[in-house]
């Protein structure tokens, strides 16, 4: 930990719902300790106060969807010693990356009265597609304990404990009964990155893959299993095309089932 001077933290927002920043606010008790250990220089969800860079740690929420943002992220990188992206939007492009598979101009013409004022990119992309990122924390939203763990690890100069294995492991460690095997409920756990502590299977629901693909997901096999559990092809496309639709692995899953 940096002795004497508190490290300067900045939280940045791009295209997102603010849910990940809220996860940080949600840490109430723990946040007091965080605020003790770091100098919060910018955190739009929490305070209007703003201190100029450079920053020791930048947390970036949201994806890149506009030409301005594609510029702004480079400025932030230049001012940040360490940059961590948080959440599905920042790490994969988020739910707004569904536009990547359609014609965005068409959406604009339907949604906005004066489409001419709208400047947007054709694709929603992860921060790491634009700049070098030091660490990516997954989840839609991120898990608050994992977020604290990442900040904690940064402060102590150690590696964060955020395993990249399947949700199934968390599910089994909790002693859950597998919803797929025992109830026939389709579950994305076998291809999904751990981090939520298997929250949906713990309430007898299938995993929605909020944390995106695990280290080495076997996508074709997952598709077969879902089909075997009675999931329609179009719903398999949807299962892959959610918050992490733009990841390579899930793009493939959806594409395979879009074709007849």
């Amino acid at each position: 930990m940096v002795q004497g001077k508190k490290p300067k933290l900045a939280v940045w927002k791009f295209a997102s719902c603010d849910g990940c920043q809220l996860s940080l606010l949600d840490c109430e008790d723990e946040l007091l300790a965080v605020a003790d250990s770091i100098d919060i220089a910018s955190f739009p969800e929490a305070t209007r106060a703003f201190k100029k860079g450079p920053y020791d740690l930048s947390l970036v929420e949201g994806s890149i969807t506009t030409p301005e943002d594609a510029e702004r992220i480079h400025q932030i990188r230049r001012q940040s010693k360490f940059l961590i992206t948080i959440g599905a939007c920042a790490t994969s492009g988020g739910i707004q990356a569904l536009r990547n598979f359609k014609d965005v101009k068409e959406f604009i013409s339907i949604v906005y009265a004066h489409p001419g004022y709208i400047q947007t990119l054709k694709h929603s992309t992860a921060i790491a597609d634009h700049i070098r990122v030091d660490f990516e924390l997954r989840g839609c939203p991120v898990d608050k304990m994992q977020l604290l763990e990442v900040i904690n690890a940064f402060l102590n100069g150690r590696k964060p404990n955020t395993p990249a294995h399947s949700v199934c492991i968390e599910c089994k460690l909790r002693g859950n009964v597998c919803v797929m095997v025992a109830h026939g409920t389709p579950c994305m756990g076998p291809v999904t990155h751990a981090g939520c502590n298997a929250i949906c299977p713990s309430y007898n629901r299938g995993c929605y893959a909020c944390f995106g693909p695990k280290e080495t997901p076997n996508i074709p096999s997952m598709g077969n299993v879902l089909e075997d559990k009675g999931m329609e092809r179009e719903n398999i496309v949807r299962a892959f095309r959610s918050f992490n639709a733009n990841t390579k692995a899930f793009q493939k899953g959806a594409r395979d089932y879009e074709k007849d």
Partner: protein
Amino acid sequence: MASSPRIGAKYTLDREALQNLIVELTDSGYQVMGPTMRDGAIIYDAVRSIADLPEGWTDDQEGGTYRLEKRLDNALFGYNVGPHSWKKFLFPPRQKLWTAKRSDQGFEIHPEEEEPLRYAFLGVRSCELHAIAIQDKVFMEDAYVDPVYKARRENLLIVAVNCGQAANTCFCVSMNTGPEAKAGFDLALTEVIDNDRHYFVAEAGSERGTGLLEKLSFESADSQEEAAANAAVNRAAEQMGRTLNTQGIRALLQDNPDHPRWDDVAKRCLSCANCTMACPTCFCSTVEDVTDLSGDHAERWRSWDSCFNLDFTYMGGGHTRHSFKSRYRQWMTHKLSTWHDQFDTSGCVGCGRCITWCPEGIDITEEAAAIRKTPKSQEKKK
């Protein structure tokens, strides 16, 4: 009432005696763990009375599926093994190993001391007794004894139950691990439902077991009752849903690392690790170090790990088992083959959990049979 119970002799207990057994164990300071229903499965958890047991239920198991079904009778143990195994009590999924505190000279380590838990397991199947015996070797033999496991294991009291039926995924007969409990228990029960009579044929396997019987109302089993118990076990042996030919399997798998079957199973394997989590003999773990924000306190935690995880083989130079093929092959070859080299026993007891709880329904017996069918090593020799 018969004279003092002896080890190895057969006695009968009725349902009430079983209830008294649970009470007796609880009163003597044991935490009684046994089968109970939760979320559509029979799992292992605290059992306070026979009302907690899955009376009148059974399980229907196949590769990748498990369903509870009503039985036509009111058997208390009329099912086979479920998603949990006893290892979760002896080798907990997550365990704090030590805490450390920063000091002037560096840091001090304080090992985690736990009040040794006193468990009594009720309803341990023969395959599971063998699994516990295997984990005993892993955790308590040789130089590196696991203190948590050892403390819990030494206090453990085991009431086994002989299977009166087998699941479609069972293959203990092949592995020579069941269905009858032969050793490693304090008490073993065989449930008999004979028209209107519902009783248990009991055998003590230790002095703790005879001591327990003494406190219950028991009768010496007559030849008819003994025959009924034997018939139940024979029925289970005949119902084995799977077989695994173990002859020469050690060499077979070690000689066939490039068999094309590994590529086939790799297409199906999700590397999700459910098989290893459910397996009662898998013992791998990883450790995580955590700190508080100040960095003045640290803890080391151990949790179950799996050879199906990429990080399992992370070393200085990177990961070594990238492919699904290398991971599945490692797991199955270890279970059925190199385990013999390492621990002088098979790593598989034929409980079938890895088959049932694999979302893809990958079947270790089917994979082993496929390799046996066209062993590459023989082709080379020709």
